[in-house]
C-alpha cells in the first residue's frame, strides 16, 4: 500500500491511498497477475454508512469484509491503514485470540470504530496509538485543520512512533508505504523514493487530487497488487475511488 496526506498552500488536506494486497497469494502465469488481487477488484465497494438518514462516514471496502481500511468522517477526519510486516505479526495475535487471550483489538475493526465514533482528530489519534492490537499496523490519519496529519507506527502492544506534518520545517506531506519511515525500505520494494520524488517535483503549491493521482499512477507506486485508489478531502467533502490495473510490464509488488 501507499498512503499520503498532503497539505496545500491554503492549509487544506488531501488524503489518498493505493490499496495493494495479495502478495505471494498465487501468481497467475498466463495473465501475469496475482490471483487474490484480481479476485478482490470486483469486491471493491464504496459504502456510505448512515444513521438517522445522515452520513456517519464513507469508506472504500470489500464486500463481505466488515472492518475498514480506508475512510472519511465528514468534517472530522480521514483514515487509512497500511500493513506492517513483522515476525511478531498478526498470526500470533490471532492464535492468542483463538486460545483465549483476547485483550487485543482487530485492526480493521478499530479503524471502523474510530471512523464511526471519534469526534476529533486528537481523539482518533489517541485511540489509534493506545489501543492494544492483534497485529502491527501503520495508521495514516488526517484531520480537518492545517497541520493535522500523522503516520502512527504500531506494534501489537505499543505505539512505536507518531510522525506528524510540520509545515514550518517544510514537511508538507507524510507518506507511508509498508516500512518504518525512519528505516530504509527493502531495496527490491522501494515505492517510497519514487513517490517522494513525484511529490517533491509537484511542489506544495500544485498539490491536488489530479497531481496525487498522477503520483499514485506512477510505477512502481502503482503495481500488480494495486486494487484501488482512493482520494479524500475533508475540507471539500470529496471522496473518489477508482479500480486500478497495472498492465505488463509492471512490478509484481
Amino acid at each position: 500500500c501507499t498512503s499520503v496526506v498532503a497539505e496545500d498552500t491554503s492549509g487544506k488536506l488531501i488524503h489518498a491511498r493505493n490499496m495493494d494486497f495479495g502478495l505471494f497469494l498465487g501468481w497467475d502465469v498466463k495473465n501475469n497477475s496475482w490471483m487474490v488481487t484480481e479476485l478482490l477488484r470486483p469486491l471493491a465497494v464504496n459504502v456510505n454508512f448512515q444513521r438517522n438518514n445522515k452520513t456517519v462516514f464513507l469508506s472504500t471496502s470489500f464486500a463481505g469484509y466488515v472492518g475498514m481500511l480506508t475512510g472519511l468522517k465528514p468534517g472530522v477526519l480521514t483514515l487509512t491503514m497500511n500493513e506492517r510486516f513483522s515476525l511478531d505479526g498478526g498470526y500470533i495475535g490471532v492464535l492468542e485470540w483463538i486460545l483465549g487471550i483476547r485483550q487485543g483489538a482487530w485492526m480493521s475493526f478499530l479503524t471502523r470504530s474510530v471512523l464511526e465514533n471519534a469526534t476529533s482528530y486528537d481523539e482518533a489519534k489517541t485511540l489509534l496509538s493506545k489501543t492494544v492490537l492483534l497485529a502491527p499496523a501503520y495508521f495514516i490519519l488526517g484531520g480537518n485543520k492545517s497541520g493535522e496529519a500523522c503516520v502512527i507506527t504500531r506494534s501489537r502492544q505499543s505505539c512505536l512512533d507518531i510522525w506528524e506534518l510540520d509545515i514550518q520545517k517544510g514537511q508538507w506531506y507524510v507518506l507511508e508505504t509498508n516500512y518504518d519511515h525512519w528505516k530504509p525500505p527493502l531495496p527490491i520494494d522501494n515505492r517510497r523514493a519514487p513517490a517522494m520524488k513525484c511529490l517533491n517535483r509537484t511542489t506544495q503549491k500544485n498539490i491536488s487530487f489530479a497531481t496525487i493521482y498522477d503520483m499514485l499512477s506512477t510505477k512502481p507506486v502503482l503495481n500488480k497488487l494495486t486494487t484501488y485508489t482512493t482520494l479524500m478531502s475533508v475540507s471539500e467533502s470529496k471522496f473518489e475511488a477508482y479500480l486500478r490495473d497495472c498492465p505488463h510490464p509492471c512490478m509484481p509488488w
Partner: protein
Amino acid sequence: QDVPPYTEDCRSGTYPPSGPTYQGNIPWYTVNLDQAPRERWQKIIADKKQPLTAMIQQIKDLVKFFFHGEKLIDLVDTKLPALLGNLPPPFDEEMKGIAEASGLPLGEVMLFNIFYEVFTV
C-alpha cells in the same frame, strides 16, 4: 523501463482517470446503521455473492496448498464459528448476516475477515 523494476518517470495528466491503468469507478452502496447488524449488508452481498464466493474459494485453495489438505478448512468450518461470540458487536452479527445472505459457511466468512491480520507475517 522494460526490465525490472519497471520504474517510470513521474506520470502527469492521468486525472480524470482513463486508459489502461483505470478499470472503472467503484460502485456506491448505503449501509444503514439503524438496521439490525444481520440485515445491513444484504444488498451488497446480494450483488457481490458470486465474486465473494470465488474469493473465499481461492483463499481455501491457498490454505489447502500451504497446509497440504482439507483438515484446516474443516477446522475453519467447524470450530471457528464457535468463537464468533468473542468478537465485539456488531461485527459478530454482521458476519452472521453475510454468511446467511451469501450461503457461505460462517467460518469461511470469518476467515476472510481475519485474513488481513494473519497476512502481516
